[in-house]
């Protein structure tokens, strides 16, 4: 019905509407421009995945070479390993981060001393602003076997020092810790906002019905922030095949000994890029990741939709 009305009113009606909603459209403009410039325009670079890139030819002038660039990833023999690492790390990050962020958000709202709440929130937020490069240096000073803080601590208590940089198994935990430490304050803000949005009369009703603090959290708060949680979960699932390059590269660096446990798709692509200047292969891997992520989002969104249509993104 509305479509018909639109067609009838034609171009004139369109401009009328533009004029009528000018304030909203103006507010929308920066976001649209931003997305076009930083998300859609760079996508033209996808053509690199199908080209034999040379510096002289650039992105547009280089020759096409079909699916040649995709061979690298599978030929490397590491495709399975790095894909597994990437996905497992991301699942771990999503689960741990979501649970901790919700917990932190709930704890923060339960704190009644305003100053203490603000201070602890700020302190938790702070690591978010520290660059991964710095975190990498900090990690080295903590875990170094010669003068690392951790080993000093262990030996002070009479333990045997651990050579972290030659112990691959320790790294999933170290990476998870730093990822959490850096993201928890930032991520909890959104849950905090969602909790603040819950109607206080529900809590009052719960209190009158005799709910204790745990019942309040589990029966009221968590169900009420479920839509937010699921939306954020869907958004993070969208990146499940993308490794956080900054983190892995700065914490692990060139230490090949740890690669079996820490090499992700992005770091493998990076090595192909810097040692052989193979831009095509890196672009191909990027495209491969994006396609996988796209499929994952579609599937998960569908599944969520089956459970409750309102929860799905689209």
């Amino acid at each position, binding site marked *: 019905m509305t479509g018909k009305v639109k067609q009838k009113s034609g171009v004139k009606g369109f401009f009328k509407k533009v004029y009528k909603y000018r304030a909203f459209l103006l507010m929308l403009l920066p976001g649209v421009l931003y997305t076009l*410039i930083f998300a859609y325009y760079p996508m033209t670079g996808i053509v690199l995945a199908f080209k034999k890139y040379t510096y002289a030819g650039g992105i547009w002038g280089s020759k096409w070479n079909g699916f040649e660039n995709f061979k690298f990833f599978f030929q490397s023999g*590491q495709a399975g390993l790095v894909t597994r690492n990437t996905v497992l790390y991301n699942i771990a990050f999503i689960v741990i981060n979501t649970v901790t962020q919700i917990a932190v958000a709930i704890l923060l709202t339960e704190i009644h001393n305003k100053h203490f709440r603000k201070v602890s929130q700020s302190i938790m937020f702070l690591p978010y602003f520290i660059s991964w490069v710095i975190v990498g240096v900090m990690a080295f000073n903590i875990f170094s076997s*010669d003068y690392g803080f951790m080993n000093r601590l262990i030996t002070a208590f009479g333990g045997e020092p651990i050579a972290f940089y030659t112990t691959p198994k320790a790294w999933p935990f170290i990476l998870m810790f730093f990822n959490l430490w850096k993201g928890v304050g930032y991520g909890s*803000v959104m849950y905090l906002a969602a909790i603040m949005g819950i109607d206080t009369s529900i809590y009052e009703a719960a209190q009158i019905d005799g709910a204790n603090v745990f019942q309040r959290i589990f029966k009221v708060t968590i169900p009420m922030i479920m839509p937010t949680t699921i939306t954020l979960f869907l958004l993070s699932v969208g990146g499940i095949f993308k490794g956080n390059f900054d983190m892995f590269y700065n914490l*692990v660096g*060139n230490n*090949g000994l740890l690669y079996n446990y820490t090499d992700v798709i992005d770091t493998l692509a990076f090595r192909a890029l810097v040692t*052989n200047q*193979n831009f095509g292969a890196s672009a191909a891997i990027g495209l491969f990741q994006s396609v996988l992520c796209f499929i994952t989002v579609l599937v998960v969104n569908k599944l969520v939709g089956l459970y409750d249509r309102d929860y799905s993104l689209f």
Partner: protein
Amino acid sequence: MKKSMKKAAALTLSAVMSTGLLAGCGGDSGSGTGSAAGNTGSTGSSGGAIDTSEHVDLKMYLLGDRTPDFDEVYAEINKILEEKLNCSVSVEFLGWGEHDTKYSLLFSGGEDFDLIFTASSWGHYEPTVAMGGFYPLTEEFIQTYAPDIWDVVPEVAWSQAKIDGTAYMVPNYQNEFGQDVIAVRGDLMEKYGVSQITNWDELIDFYKKCGADGQYASQGGPWYQYFQAQGYTITGGAPKGGELILYNTQDPSNLDFTYILDWEGFADYCHQMKELADAGCWSQDVLSSGDERQTGLLTGRTAGMIWNLGSCRNYAEQANKEHPEWNVALMDPVANQPKKVNSYINNGMAINVNSQNPERAMMVLNEFYTNPTINDLTRFGIVGKHWEPVGDDQFKVITTEGYGVDSNCNWGWMNAEIKRTEYKEDRTALDDTYDAMLASWESNIKEEHIYDGFNFDSTNVTVQMAAVDAVIPTYCDPLINGLVPDVDKALEDFRNAMETAGIRDIIAELEKQAAEYVESKK
């Protein structure tokens, strides 16, 4: 309704937050491209006749760090260039820690520059040529725009620089030895009762004594020394900077290539390294450490440092100045072998294929290379401040502070014909060792092996090269530094990974090209 409101709120909030977070990077990259675009003001001069009527500013990339007086020295150079060629050169540096990652990005990022330092294997020459990053230097081009370079640089140097028939760099011209030595703490040698380090066994013995004393010996395993002691050397353009495939350079009649995983020597080396690493001869953190090559020696964390003769002397001098009691000395751990002179393409200068002014860039190189005043400026700094000439062919250092001798990536235009040698007044034991070592090397130069000038061109096997090079760090570096728990298993894994990645294709292609090269030289 409520649910969808909340969903919308969450979406908006997270969108806003991620936008805010990306805005920082976005702003950066935006301004970056803006300034790059702003620089492209100059246009190319008409080819053919040399026309320098239009003033141009050239941009040059060098490796290393900018010394405090660097700009002052280059201001002097620019005065000469302005007068002679109506142009000036501004220099940017790619630091030692970053050039591996940033070199290729200069080309792909569309950075506007004209000249760049390059070198075979360690200086990205072959991969950049394979990607078409350098301006091809035809004979006619060189003769027209750099006639003096053409007169000086020997034919053999050009032929080393040629890949598939075309040269893409101006190679330097000097006899530089491709042999590292060890700068080692004299006080520790005395303490451990080691009188000299001239061969592999003595080196390992010293390392073990360091380890037993709780003193790190080095910042990793002496892999080069191992294969050099057996006469092997790296193959230009092969994976891992040439280390994966070796050839016997001491035996010119031996035209075989040695793939290290088919060589029992590599397994033997890895077992020895495991023993040394377990004995504490170097830190367990060497693979993750961001230390510079000289850090260990200068801070006293390691007993020695293995590097080329010149760097070893410089840092030994510095260490002795700061800690006279250390008595750092120079030793040649591969003393028994005749010395290999580095190929001339171990340092060189290239022109960016997208340069607006390749002709002028070549003319500037001609000046750097053959104008003694400029060449001396780049090597030593300013007369009267950093150095002073002694006669026509010697120099005396006034101070190494601020600029230093040959420490400003001036190696691309080293020219043996006008190269001054050092005149020293108060000589130390170090200087005597250095001179004696150099003299003995010069009298013991090895026979030329035909592969010394050969460079592998990986264009036909790019996929395999990318796969091999991306996988190597996982297996090779831990083995070379003895950090794996089980050497035999690690070797087996390494071997399998290389087979999957297509090492055999690379070897086959290498052998084919080498055979053609040998044929073409007959």
